[in-house]
C-alpha cells in the first residue's frame, strides 16, 4: 500500500459530500442516471423517492459500498470514485447507520461501541470506554452500557447503532432508512436523536420515508425518480412541489 496521503486541504466552503453526474447500473438495470447533488458542512440533506428510485444506492455509493460506473463522488476532500481510494480512511470520516441496526449480537453495547475506536484508531481501552459512555448518553442509553443487543428494543438498538457510529467521530453521517424496520411508536425516539445531531451541526445525508420528519430537519430535499434527481431544493418543495411526480409522491405520503 502507498503511504497514507492526506487529502488536499479543501477550501472552507467546499461541500463535504458532492456527487457529480453519477452513473451506476446493476447489470442492465440503470439505478443512477446522472445524479448530482452536494452537501455543505453542517447541512442535512434528505433523499426521498419511491422504492427503486436509486436513493439508497446513491447513499451507499458515498461510503463506497457500491462502486460507480461514471461521474465523480467527492467526500471530505477524497475522490471516492478513485480506484486507489483508501477505503478505510474514507470510512473513518463517514459514519453509516443501516435499516436493520446491525449491532454485533455477541458483544455488549459498550463492546459494540469501543470495538472500532480501539481496533482502528488505536484509542486506549479506558479512553474508548469513556467515549462509549459519552456517546451513549448522547442517545439517551447510558444505562444500557452492559446490555446485549437482544435485550434492547428495536428503537434502543438503533440508537445504540447511532452511538456506535458517533464514537468514530465521523465528519458526515449517513442514515439509510433507519426507522423503516421499527414499530411506529419507536420511530420517534430515533428521529429525536437524529434531530439532536442536526442541531449540533453534524453533516448528514438521510434516506427516509418519514415526510414530516424530512420537512422539519432538511436543509435540502433531493427527490429521486427513476435514477435521476427529479427535483431538489429546500424543505419547502415538499409543501409546494413544482413537478407532478413529487406532488404525487408527497400526496400519497409515500
Amino acid at each position: 500500500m502507498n503511504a497514507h496521503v492526506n487529502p488536499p486541504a479543501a477550501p472552507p466552503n467546499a461541500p463535504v459530500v458532492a456527487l457529480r453526474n453519477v452513473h451506476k447500473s446493476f447489470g442492465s438495470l440503470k439505478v443512477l442516471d446522472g445524479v448530482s447533488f452536494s452537501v455543505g458542512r453542517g447541512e442535512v440533506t434528505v433523499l426521498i423517492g419511491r422504492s427503486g428510485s436509486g436513493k439508497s444506492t446513491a447513499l451507499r455509493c458515498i461510503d463506497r459500498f457500491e462502486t460507480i460506473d461514471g461521474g465523480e463522488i467527492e467526500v471530505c476532500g477524497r475522490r471516492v470514485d478513485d480506484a486507489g481510494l483508501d477505503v478505510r480512511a474514507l470510512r473513518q470520516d463517514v459514519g453509516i447507520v443501516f435499516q436493520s441496526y446491525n449491532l454485533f449480537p455477541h458483544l455488549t453495547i459498550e463492546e459494540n461501541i469501543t470495538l472500532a475506536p480501539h481496533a482502528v484508531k488505536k484509542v486506549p481501552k479506558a479512553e474508548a470506554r469513556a467515549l462509549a459512555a459519552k456517546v451513549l448518553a448522547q442517545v439517551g442509553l447510558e444505562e444500557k452500557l452492559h446490555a446485549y443487543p437482544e435485550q434492547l428494543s428495536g428503537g434502543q438498538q438503533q440508537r445504540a447503532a447511532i452511538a456506535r457510529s458517533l464514537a468514530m467521530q465521523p465528519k458526515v453521517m449517513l442514515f439509510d432508512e433507519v426507522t423503516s424496520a421499527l414499530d411506529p411508536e419507536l420511530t420517534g425516539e430515533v428521529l429525536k436523536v437524529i434531530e439532536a445531531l442536526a442541531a449540533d451541526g453534524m453533516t448528514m445525508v438521510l434516506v427516509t420515508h418519514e415526510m414530516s420528519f424530512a420537512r422539519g430537519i432538511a436543509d435540502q430535499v433531493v427527490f429521486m425518480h427513476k435514477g435521476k434527481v427529479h427535483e431538489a431544493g429546500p424543505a419547502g418543495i415538499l409543501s409546494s412541489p413544482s413537478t407532478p411526480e413529487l406532488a404525487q409522491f408527497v400526496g400519497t405520503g409515500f
Partner: protein
Amino acid sequence: MGGALNINHLLFLGHGALWTIGLSAIALIGGGSFGFLIALGRVSPSRAVRLLAATYVQLIQGTPLLVIMFLSFFGLAALGFNISPLLAAGASMTIFVAAYLGEIWRGCIEAVPKQQWEAAEGLALSRSQRMVKVILPQAIRLATPPTVGFMVQIVKNTSLASVVGFVELTRSGQIINNSLFEPFIIYSIIAVVYFSLCYPLSRLSRRLERSALQKKPALA
C-alpha cells in the same frame, strides 16, 4: 490363546477403545486445524485460494476414507516411505476430517448475515479485524452443534484404521476373535462400546442445537 472370553481379552479391548478415542482426538485436532484453514480458504477474497480450497474439498469428499488409508499406508510404502500405522491413520483421518469440517465451517461463516460484514466495514475495520472480531465469534456459535455431531462420524470412521493394522477397537476385536471364534459376542461388545462413545456426543449435539435456537438473537 483359545478358550473363553476372559478379563485379559476385555483389557485388550479396553486398550483398543482408548486408541479409538486417541485417534478420534488426533483427527479432531489435526482435521480441525487444517479444516479451519480450508474454511477460511473457501471464503477468501482471492479466487485462486477459493478454487484451491474447493478442489481439495471436492477431491477428498469424492474419495472413500478407506482408499485414503490404503494410499497413505501401502501407497507411500511402495514409494519407499515407511510410515507407521499410527502416522498413516492419523494423517488419513486429518485429511478426511479437514475436508468435511472445512465445508461445515464455511457454511457457518457464510450463515452470519451479510449485514454484519457491512456494519463492520462501515466502521473501517480491516478484513482480518472483521473476520476475527465480528464474524468468527458468531460463526463459532453456529458451528458448535454440527461440529459435535460430526464427531460421531469421526469416532465411527476410526474403525477403518483397522485395515492398516492400527490396533484400535475394531482391530483389537478382530484379533481376539481370531483366537476365540466368538464373533457374535465380541462384535456385540464392540458395537456397544462404539454406541456408548457416540450416543453422548449426538445427545450433546442435539442439546447444543436446541439451546442455540433458543438464544438466537432477535435480528430484524
